[in-house]
């Protein structure tokens, strides 16, 4: 039930781009993205609710493809502040909804 994230880790130079993928074996109704900096709490980035919907947060955007049951997070012109672990979460229904997170993608941006 846990969504699968890839890659597990990414190393970038400032200004480079990256894509983080999140996929599920079950039908997706929404995808939630969070970023956690080292030693801090996870922070909400965005929720994608509709198939094909794209949203943005600063220079971070995401897409959601319901048919492929996957979402991708695009980090453009990365900054040092983008470093951290990115989690995608998907809602699992079963009486009450539960937000289940993937294992995370560690992103390190170097000068």
């Amino acid at each position, binding site marked *: 039930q846990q969504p699968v994230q890839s890659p597990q880790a990414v190393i970038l130079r400032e200004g480079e781009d990256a894509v983080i993928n999140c996929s599920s074996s079950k039908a997706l109704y929404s995808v939630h993205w969070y970023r956690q900096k080292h030693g801090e*709490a996870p922070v909400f980035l965005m929720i994608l609710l509709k198939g094909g919907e794209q949203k943005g947060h600063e220079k971070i955007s995401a897409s959601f493809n319901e048919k492929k049951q996957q979402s991708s997070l695009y980090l453009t012109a990365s900054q040092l502040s983008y470093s951290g672990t990115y989690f995608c979460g998907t*809602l699992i229904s079963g009486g009450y909804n539960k937000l289940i997170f993937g294992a995370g993608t560690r992103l390190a941006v170097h000068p």
Partner: protein
Amino acid sequence: DTAVSQTPKYLVTQMGNDKSIKCEQNLGHDTMYWYKQDSKKFLKIMFSYNNKELIINETVPNRFSPKSPDKAHLNLHINSLELGDSAVYFCASSPGQGFEKLFFGSGTQLSVL
């Protein structure tokens, strides 16, 4: 003002002891959660409460007992601590029951020796 605050930030204790973690949110949210983050950074939901009512209990050992005296507070009491309980515990809140935009507390790092 901190939106979701947890205390203590660090907790070091011996196996077999009982400990509590407190959480308070001043956002006026209806739903609060406990998540556990293990050493591999895996974030797993433990409990959720909506207006003081337990909604989700995610097959957590009954040594863990959440308590919500009002909708702004959700505490976690852990009995007979075991080595495997060592983790970071995050409290979170959201406006409704649908896991819209979770606001996380800063976490409590629990180390069981």
